[in-house]
């Protein structure tokens, strides 16, 4: 809940009350994603990577197997099926976009 990286300009553009809760949710999602990425890559640097770090090439460098395993864990832990709901997988652009997608789906419940 203390991860200030979670709050970005896009959150600030929203109304105050939803902003607070959305930013809080997203920060919590980011923290759990960081832990998952650390486990999947066995790389401590992944735990502290900034939200704008790409998940695939040139960033965390997830290969297709690890990207798939990440989505399995996201489905199990957050109940959000990214593979099914994000057809173009734009949410895999970076850690922040994935966190935003998950937090957004959670908030719609």
């Amino acid at each position, binding site marked *: 809940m203390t991860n200030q990286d979670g709050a970005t300009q896009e959150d600030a553009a929203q109304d105050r009350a939803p902003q607070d809760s959305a930013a809080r949710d997203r920060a919590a999602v980011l923290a759990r994603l960081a832990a998952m990425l650390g486990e999947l890559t066995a790389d401590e640097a992944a735990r502290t990577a900034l939200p704008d770090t790409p998940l695939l090439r040139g960033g965390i460098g997830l290969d297709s197997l690890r990207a798939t395993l990440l989505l399995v864990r996201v489905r199990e832990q957050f109940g959000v099926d990214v593979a099914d709901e994000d*057809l173009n997988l734009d949410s895999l652009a970076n850690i922040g976009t994935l966190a935003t997608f998950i937090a957004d789906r959670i908030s719609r419940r």
Partner: protein
Amino acid sequence: MIKCLIWDLDNTLFAGVYLESAGQSPPVDPGPAAVLAELAGRGILQAIASRNPPQAASYAAQATGHQFAAAQCGWGAKSDAIAAILHDLGLTPDEVAFVDDDALERGEVSFALPGVLVLAPEDLPEALGWPQFSPPIITAEGRRRGELYIQRRARQAEAAAFGGSPEAFLRYCGTQVRIGRAGPADVPRLHELSVRTHQFNSAGLVVSEATLAELLTAPGHQVVTVRLADRFGDDGLVGGGVIRSAESTWQVPLLMMSCRAMGRGVIGPLLTWIGLEAARVGATEVAVACVVNERNVPLRIALASAGFRASDADASPADTSPANASPADTSLADASAGQPAWARPAGRSPGPNRTVAYRIGLDRPLAGLPDWVVTDD
């Protein structure tokens, strides 16, 4: 279908414990060794995950006369060793089996990697008859599979030491991707690809040899093949697709590629080639019908990178009616109605396995093919 069997050594493949046999290594247990030879002959890879020094794997290779596709020796968790093998071979947990005499090790692997088929040595004789271990056909590529993964490791070792871009590495390896039209001789391997590919398979279903043979000469259809080779070895036929090219939108009901060809400059250029061919004859769009599941995420990432976007243009009336459209998913549509009968599993309903069209317009100039791609015509 199991693509790789991962062996424990002590008291599993070996009749004894490697480190406890003073001065003399334990003999290979003839029963498990026969299973290994039989499964290797069916094109199933063999690998080692053992709590031993690496010499134990070399001894296993020498004693069985089999070159293992991967080996992880050490004192960490077996599930970590298996995860490393999956990474090495580009496989997913549900594509491998693990055999170990120790119930605790089997439990640890089952817990950490629930997809893995976990076996005790006494299961092996019966497992030989299970469908997961019985590929229906064994092609030239299948028989050479172990060898191809050994070449793959040599390639990966050089890639790790290579300083340049991924494209520069493909050129350094002398990569050659050959795209051509399928002939009757390609049918068994194309069928095998439809059985074995999941990460890069748009339709997610088995296409019979009879159907493929019919499609070869069907009016308005093209069946394409992709072959891959570099100086490390010849991978043979690694991919293919079926294109319906009669209309202004080229429909692609099937696209598939071996995961061995991942990262080797195949799937992106294949998508580019289809677009270029379509544009050459005046088509305005290419639409790849792709089943939406967790396993083919790699193919969908490749489609998105190549500029294809999922669209709702193929929505059938039932799919777009307000009663069926959920507010969050109004852009989702089931394109399976537009699929030919052979590419449309009976009884499939919209939902977990719906099919969506990934489209690209050909009004913009397309990128050219990279220089490692050659075409037959």
